[in-house]
């Protein structure tokens, strides 16, 4: 790194930049005058820039509590957060420009935090949670809490001893009110083998002070906080050896949860310390709190709360169906009935989402168990039945959506006949893939809308009802299956990527339908590479050759479909 050149460049830009030696380290120091005083910015020289060049704020203590500036332990330096996320792409080929850009960002941010006091305070509250995490001990276990946030007692359980990850490795806090929340049963299940870790209170704060910058300042922060906020006298009088105080407060970035733990020094029980004197009998430490409720977790992890009340019947839990239910679960679907008569076998392992400890288990049961343990708020049921066994009007009408992934054109068309004859109103998605990675398809049949499954089966050459879908990329009557062990062991070669890709287009249609964003019968295909197909001498359809609308949602309606004109 040529620092001479960088200094020259910065000086050319009007900065007062010099190369110095601070605490035996080579530094680039920039001195900047502004209306409120002077900023001293120190950059410790590096060999390579792999992020925006970092400057520390010198004489940090003289500025008080600044948002986006954190103390560097043991030095009077502040580390400045100029928004250097991973997504910032830095010009490492022109280091001097990267330095200039970074310097400007530092100066703009620092002058703003110093000069605009109200903004500074708001920012301090906005980043409260991040600042709180900074003073927490990395090695201590997280505190998972199921609570509504009102002032109430909380029962605290220790982590399961020896556990390094998962829920078992964390403290759990459950309040009385939480037992009425849907998540309670899930979190309560985690309770086994835990001992009680002490008493605690959930305390909502109306008057939040910015987070302490160091753990030494925590005591002072605590005393001011309990002085300025309401805590019921019942809690204040309670005596104990260890208290968990779980706070929640509104900040500019939403409701924030955090906490402290108080442990008495020596023996005996005491009530909560209320002044400096009584606090001396206690050791105080900050804790990380993760609130466990769906309003917080589902949107944060990408799920949609609007799908929680929806109920989906998934028919076929093979490679494609398995992927679909995982994705529907992740999207936040609240209720799913999984349906498949098949057993999970060794032949499936490399293209199925299930893990091998389910070998020999019915696929619907296995998936139901997996979904229940993966998604806290999902309700699943299973049916060990085939598609054609589900022909019951009331049953089918009770769902918001039916997804069929069985790869059986005969059964799918028979089932569709039943839907038409009985005026079933539930939307239906049929999805399938083709062999050798050539592609996959999904068809959405919205009852009472133009276009139906049979539109996807109109024989394009004759206009008659076809037996094979006109969406297919491979010609019919080719011997595509591979026979591994005689009759009944034929299978179509495809891999898990094809299954996942197909599940994606089907899930996308499903979510769009359930959210009311897709209002007409539609079809979607993804087109894969044909080299495998060609090298085996198979032929592709005209549609494959012409197709350039992968992943696009297209109208399903075919003007020659007699059912749409019946």
């Amino acid at each position, binding site marked *: 790194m040529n620092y001479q050149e960088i200094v020259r460049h910065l000086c050319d830009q009007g900065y007062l930049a010099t190369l110095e030696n601070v605490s035996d380290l080579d530094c680039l120091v920039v001195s900047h005058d502004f209306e409120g005083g002077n900023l001293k910015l120190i950059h410790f020289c590096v060999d390579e820039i792999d992020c925006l060049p970092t400057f520390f704020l010198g004489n940090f203590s003289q500025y008080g509590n600044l948002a986006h500036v954190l103390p560097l332990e043991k030095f009077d330096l502040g580390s400045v957060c100029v928004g250097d996320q991973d997504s910032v792409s830095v010009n490492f080929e022109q280091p001097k420009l990267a330095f200039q850009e970074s310097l400007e960002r530092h100066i703009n941010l620092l002058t703003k935090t110093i000069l605009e006091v109200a903004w500074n305070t708001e920012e301090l509250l906005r980043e409260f949670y991040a600042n709180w995490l900074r003073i927490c001990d990395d090695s201590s276990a997280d505190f998972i809490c199921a609570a509504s946030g009102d002032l109430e007692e909380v029962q605290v359980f220790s982590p399961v001893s020896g556990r390094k990850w998962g829920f078992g490795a964390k403290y759990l806090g459950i309040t009385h009110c939480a037992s009425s929340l849907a998540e309670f049963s899930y979190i309560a299940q985690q309770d086994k083998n835990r001992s009680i870790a002490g008493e605690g209170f959930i305390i909502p704060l109306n008057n939040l002070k910015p987070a302490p910058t160091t753990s030494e300042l925590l005591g002072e922060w605590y005393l001011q906080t309990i002085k300025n906020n309401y805590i019921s006298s019942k809690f204040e009088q309670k005596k104990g050896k260890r208290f968990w105080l779980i706070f929640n407060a509104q900040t500019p970035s939403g409701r924030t949860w955090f906490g402290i733990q108080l442990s008495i020094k020596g023996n005996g029980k005491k009530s909560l310390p209320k002044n400096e004197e009584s606090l001396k009998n206690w050791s105080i430490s900050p804790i990380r709190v993760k609130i466990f409720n769906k309003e917080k977790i589902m949107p944060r992890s990408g799920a949609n709360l609007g799908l929680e009340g929806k109920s989906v019947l998934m028919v076929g839990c093979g490679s494609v169906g398995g992927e679909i239910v995982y994705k529907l679960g992740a999207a936040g679907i609240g209720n799913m009935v999984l349906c498949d008569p098949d057993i999970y076998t060794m032949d499936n392992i490399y293209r199925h989402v299930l893990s091998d400890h389910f070998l020999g288990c019915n696929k619907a049961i296995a998936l139901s168990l997996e979904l229940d343990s993966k998604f806290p708020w999902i309700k699943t049921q299973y049916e060990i039945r085939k598609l054609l066994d589900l022909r019951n009007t009331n049953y089918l009408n009770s769902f918001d959506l039916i997804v069929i992934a069985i790869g059986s054109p005969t059964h799918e068309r028979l089932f569709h006949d039943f839907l038409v004859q009985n005026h079933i109103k539930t939307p239906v998605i049929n999805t399938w893939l083709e062999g050798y990675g050539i592609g996959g398809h999904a068809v959405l049949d919205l009852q009472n809308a133009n276009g139906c499954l049979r539109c996807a089966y109109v024989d394009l050459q004759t*206009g008659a009802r076809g037996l094979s879908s006109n969406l297919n990329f491979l010609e019919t009557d080719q011997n595509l299956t591979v026979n591994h062990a005689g009759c009944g062991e034929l299978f179509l070669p495809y891999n898990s990527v094809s299954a996942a890709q197909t599940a994606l287009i089907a899930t996308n249609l499903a979510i769009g339908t359930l959210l009311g964003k897709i209002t007409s019968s539609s079809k979607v295909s993804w087109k894969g590479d044909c080299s495998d197909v060609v090298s085996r001498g198979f032929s592709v359809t005209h549609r494959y050759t012409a197709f350039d609308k992968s992943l696009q949602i297209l109208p399903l309606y075919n003007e020659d479909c007699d059912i749409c004109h019946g």
Partner: protein
Amino acid sequence: MSIQKHFNTFHDAIKLSKQDDAYKTARERDDSITNDVRNAFKDAGYPVIEDFIQGSISTDTAILKKSGDFDIDRAIVIDCDNAPDNCVKPKITLCENVLEKRGFQNAKIKKPCVTADYKSENLHIDFPIYRKNGAEYELAIGKRNADESNRKWEEADPRGLKDWIKDKSSYIGSASDKLSQFNHLVRYLKRWRDEKFSEGVAAKIHSIGITVMAKQCFSPSFDSDGKPDDLIALKTTVSAMLIHGYFTAKANSQYQVSAFLPKKPWRDIFDGSSVNTGTQFRNKLSTLEGKLQDAISETDEIEKCKILREVFGDDFPVPEKSNNSASTRKAIFSSSGAVGTSQGA
């Protein structure tokens, strides 16, 4: 309903194929005569070494004639070593020892073949006679009393011609669908000819001529889903036929038509045809092009069909009510018992 479906209905109405019942009776007659030919030729010292169907039935481009007549082209092949130098001799054998014996009053020796009509069956059979030397065929050319200068064993390639018409190797992707569209187009053009020309002129616009021109000018058309669009394919093919060089302008807006066989003997299919034939052919083909364009531009289904009926005659369907009417549509079921699909999950 899509216009393609109406074309399919039209095609079903005009096509003649080996599987048709009407053709089966004809084929039985033909088989029985061919058997007699084998015996007669054996007795004459030049046994039949092979026989095969040639012509449109063998290339899936045959249509039902409006008159209800059927044509069969039955090639009779004898070995070159046994064949008499006088190529008319076997034709006389066929005519006198077979056809006349069976009571055909109108058996005739024409220049390229012997013909016979089954009046009661509306059946017309042509027998071209070839001699075969290795893989090479030579056709017996000459009328009954032709002298040496008017008769010869002429090089021919009947199987090569058939293969050329059925060839799909140059079609990239969905070759079978494209060949099938080509077959449709040839049938439409033949029906158009029968509909739009007087019997005498129609007879001079030979089917093989239409087939060769259409093959050389064929421009397939499918939508992005792979659904055939015969209307557009026919229009672009006809346009190409008009500018391909088959029609040579003569004085007074007259035209001479010529098209060469793509195989031996490479002769002009329209050799000896009049400017009247060429002019009518050229002008009516040009009118056809215009009408097809009108049909393409027309958006109303019924109006489209009416234009096409004007071109192709009453076998082209015109629906009573258009698409959007509440009329229910009859389901057409697949003609296959089952097909293997690529579908899995």
